[in-house]
């Protein structure tokens, strides 16, 4: 429903005179001591805060803490057993993502601008927190003085900027991206400048030397930082040269492809086998299949075309029962799908049909490439079952889980809202059974029951099994979110589409689904966050993700250093790493929600 007050009434606050600035005493009276109960609450709350913050910082600073267990094991936490000489592959993967990010930020005009007074106040608030923490926590005298000076500088700088700019501080002038770039730059500068004692195995037990926290990563991080900024500026130039629409489309395809390419290609370093055979099969499918699609897509063929496409589908399904190259089976299935969708998506016009056949050719090329990648042998040799571990594994599980669950979730949502009873029944059954049982049960199923259903010579590596079940699990939740979106679409939309003569498939793909998905974007981001957190459960089924390393490996290390009893430190570090990312996601999702204006239209 439209928010009528916004349309009819002028925004009163906009015209109201600015209240006179309040002093800190008035502020405290208004916000802390406005009644007897409030005063008591304030005192109690302050006591709790002081005890808690003091205790926490005291715990962190206590001399017996083995923080060097974390600093020397950062590589283990991030990428586990990935060989050192191949880490450039990880950096390259990360670089590819960041460059894509920089380009995308430019092409989508991301960011917006913020008010200097907000920035100043945040800075001042941060300074205040720093000053409070050093006072409350058991710092040394010099530590307290330094902390107080830093805090005071930040508070003065923040408030000073606001005071200096006066009225102009209320205009949105500072681009958000600049602030983010400055903060990231400061973090990287800190990597170069800040030194902490790190145990030195060569100097002997108990010896340590000053080093930055992640000494080997300062160079790559700086490079990546510069590359991202360069990519952004490249994007701003490019978006003037090429049409924005084309650029965005290319970027979206790159994003979709980036994940499999990174996981299968960059990080594994694949040696291809049987390229000639695959290329031949692909070429054959592209040409013959293209001709078939071109013919069948013409609506003139009527039911004959659909019937033939249906036969293709039967053929494709049969091919899974007989022995054939997996590539052939996949391409046959894809071909049947394209042929079935032809009349819906291509139609009679020459141009659209040409475009459709080109799309088919592109799909064949991508499929052949991905198949080559996944059947190739990894050149990155590790002692492990797979090359993936640590925080890197967490990301792969989360992204792959979400990516795989998305199509399944949408299909399930459509099934559950369908008018066809058997589809509805099966979808509902799937969704309710999956949702009713906890994820850890499904993960145990993936490890102990799932392999029973496959021939003994087929073995999946653990991450693949677990990813599949995370995807199955997530799909059920995703389906419920999408169903909410589908049900929020007014009936008029589907009726209008029917009146235009659209088929059920066209109506769903072009009218209902896009609107439904747009309406549930915030819920979908929430789902991504939930899955990101849930990947920590794989530690229980024995995968070496960041939690398993922090809990079971670091506290048991005795050579070359003794890190026994460092589990609290390790867990705290893991928690902080998770927190940083989840918190950022949830803030981004809030901003996205505001920008999309979901719920306010």
């Amino acid at each position, binding site marked *: 429903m439209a928010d009528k007050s916004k349309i009819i009434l002028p925004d009163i606050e906009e015209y109201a005179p600015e209240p006179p600035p309040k002093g800190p005493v008035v502020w405290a009276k208004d916000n802390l001591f406005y009644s007897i109960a409030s005063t008591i609450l304030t005192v109690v709350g302050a006591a709790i805060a002081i005890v808690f913050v003091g205790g926490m910082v005291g715990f962190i600073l206590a001399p017996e803490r083995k923080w060097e267990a974390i600093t020397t094991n950062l590589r283990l936490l991030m990428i586990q057993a990935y060989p050192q000489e191949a880490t450039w592959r990880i950096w390259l993967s990360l670089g590819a993502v960041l460059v894509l990010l920089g380009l995308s930020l430019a092409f989508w005009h991301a960011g917006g601008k913020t008010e200097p007074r907000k920035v100043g106040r945040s800075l001042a608030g941060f300074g205040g927190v720093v000053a409070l923490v050093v006072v409350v926590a058991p710092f040394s005298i010099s530590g307290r003085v330094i902390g107080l000076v830093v805090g005071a500088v930040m508070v003065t700088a923040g408030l000073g900027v606001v005071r200096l700019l006066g009225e102009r501080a209320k205009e949105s002038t500072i681009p958000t991206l600049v602030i983010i770039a400055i903060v990231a730059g400061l973090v990287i500068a800190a990597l170069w400048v800040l030194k902490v004692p790190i145990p030195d195995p060569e100097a002997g037990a108990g010896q340590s030397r000053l080093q930055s926290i992640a000494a080997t990563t300062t160079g790559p991080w700086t490079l990546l930082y510069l590359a991202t900024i360069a990519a952004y500026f490249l994007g701003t130039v490019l978006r003037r040269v090429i049409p924005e629409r084309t650029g965005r489309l290319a970027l979206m395809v790159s994003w979709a492809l980036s994940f499999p390419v990174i996981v299968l290609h960059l990080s594994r370093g694949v040696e291809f086998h049987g390229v000639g055979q695959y290329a031949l099969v692909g070429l054959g499918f592209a040409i013959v299949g293209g001709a078939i699609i071109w013919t069948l897509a013409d609506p003139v063929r009527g039911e004959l075309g659909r019937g033939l496409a249906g036969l293709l589908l039967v053929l494709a399904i049969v091919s899974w029962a007989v022995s054939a190259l997996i590539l052939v089976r996949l391409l046959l299935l894809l071909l049947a799908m394209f042929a079935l969708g032809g009349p819906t998506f291509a139609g009679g016009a020459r141009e659209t049909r040409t475009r459709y056949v080109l799309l088919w050719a592109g799909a064949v090329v991508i499929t052949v490439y991905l198949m080559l990648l996944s059947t190739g042998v990894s050149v990155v040799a590790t002692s492990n079952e797979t090359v993936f571990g640590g925080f890197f594994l967490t990301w792969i599980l989360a992204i792959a889980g979400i990516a795989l669950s998305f199509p399944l979730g949408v299909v399930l949502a459509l099934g559950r809202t369908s008018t066809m*009873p058997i589809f509805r029944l099966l979808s509902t059954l799937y969704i309710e059974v999956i949702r009713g049982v906890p994820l850890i049960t499904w993960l145990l199923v993936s490890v102990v029951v799932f392999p029973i259903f496959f021939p003994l010579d087929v073995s999946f590596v653990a991450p693949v099994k677990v990813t599949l079940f995370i995807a199955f699990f997530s799909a059920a939740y995703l389906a419920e979110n999408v169903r909410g979106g589908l049900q929020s679409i007014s009936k008029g939309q589907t009726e209008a589409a029917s009146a235009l003569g659209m088929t059920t498939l066209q109506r769903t793909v072009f009218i209902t689904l896009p609107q439904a998905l747009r309406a549930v974007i915030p819920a979908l981001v929430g789902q991504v966050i939930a899955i990101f957190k849930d990947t920590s459960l794989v530690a229980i089924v024995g995968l070496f993700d960041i939690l398993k390393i922090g809990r079971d490996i670091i506290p048991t290390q005795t050579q070359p250093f003794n890190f026994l009893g460092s589990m609290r430190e390790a867990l705290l570090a893991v928690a902080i790493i998770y927190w940083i990312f989840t918190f950022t996601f949830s803030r981004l999702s809030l901003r996205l929600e505001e920008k999309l204006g979901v719920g306010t239209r």
Partner: protein
Amino acid sequence: MAVTVSKQERPPIWRNATVLKWTAQLVLVAFIVVAILTLRTQASGNIDARGITFGTKWLSDPPLFAIREGIDLQPDSGARAIYAGIINTLRVSISGIIAASILGTIVGIARLSHNWIVNKIATVYIETIRNIPLLVQIIFWLVVVQIFPALTGDDVGERLFIASAKGLSIPWLFPHDGFYQWLAFLIVGAVVAGLVHHRLAKLKEDRGGETHAFVWSVVTFAVIAAIGWFIHPIMAFWGPVWDGVSSFFGAIPSVLLQILLAGGAILAAVMWVRRFLDQMRTPAGLAKLTDDHWFRMIFVGLIGLVGAALFAFVPAISEGILRLLEAFFNFLGDKFDSSRTAAPLNYTTPAIELRGTGGFAQLSDQALVITPGFFALWIGVTLYTAAFIAEIVRGGIMAVAKGQSEAGLALGLSRSQLLQFIVLPQAFRIVLPPIGNQYLNLFKNTSLGIAVAFPDIVQVGQTLYNQTGQTFPVVITWMAFFLAGSLVLSYIVNYFNRRLELVER
């Protein structure tokens, strides 16, 4: 103008929407059936190759392990071990749900407080807890317990409260000899108190004036409970009654129940179809039934028939129900036995004792012992769920129309009165469904106890299948338990939701 309507041509069969839809659906069903059959063949081949046969023997065989905590530490059968695991899961779930509701409500209100520091503490709590995976938190709490002092032989003795690396121990009231007889008094008290409340509330409505209905009903309940505490043995006359009921169920032949249940299943299906057809009836006669409607009726009919066949031809179901009822009333008969004359509740204080062959200092289980695993899991799920509940409560309070608070303030209500009588009752209605969802999440999240060796159903099941290789049956047991639990919980939430719903006109 005359309009001529030519008779509509029937479309050819390959263009008939109904035919096409059903073809697609039946093809999918056929595909699924074929896939399941293929997987089944493959699975049975693999299972044979491993020399395992899945069955129910593991349920009756004694498991070769001890359960760390719960109602039965040395279960004599697999079924009993699973049952002990279920009780442990329920213990954490129920105590967690209660604690998380209280904490979540407090934090949610604090989040809206005008007091800056209270508001900030609530915000920091929510933002910290929500953004760290629950599993990390549970493991963290387990490590935290380990900083409590270890027990040594010098600590032997009784205390009021013990916090040690082996767990916490607090004073507790345990049900004792006469508990069930007293419980009967409590039930009587609750009924009488309800009547008193009803009567006084009616009086207040009829005559006006404050009758303190709530206070009086509580007083009534307390008085009856107090009297019952001393004279509970007089309830012993129920003992023979329950014994009689028990032998009654023992005497019924299972054939009778088989027939009754089968008949009931068919009757229920028929009733459903009749009600469905009644709904379709319009003043102009029966509405046109679509294929979907027909499918529903046939489907329900089929389910009724299958259920009836199951009840009629599998005597084990009826037999099981009868034995269960018999055992239950036998249990009640025993608990109401006239020899049980001691106090209903037993107060115990924590103690440390030497136990085992080596004489290690242990927490005595005479008082309530909270093991590290239970503590970590319970506090983990409680804090985590409370953060989500707090956000829901905040949203619910903010969703109550502003005019309601303004009207309340205009009537001269104080802030706390406003919250108590105007805002919270309305917010409660809004927040109930999402909070119910959080309860379900908490219930499922207790399965993470497996990471801290808390013997819930998942952990016990895992140990069982590691020992016997009966993976498939154990997984089925898990699924049945969690699905049933989710169903019951959502039924309870829905029940309250319906009761609270505004009556729409």
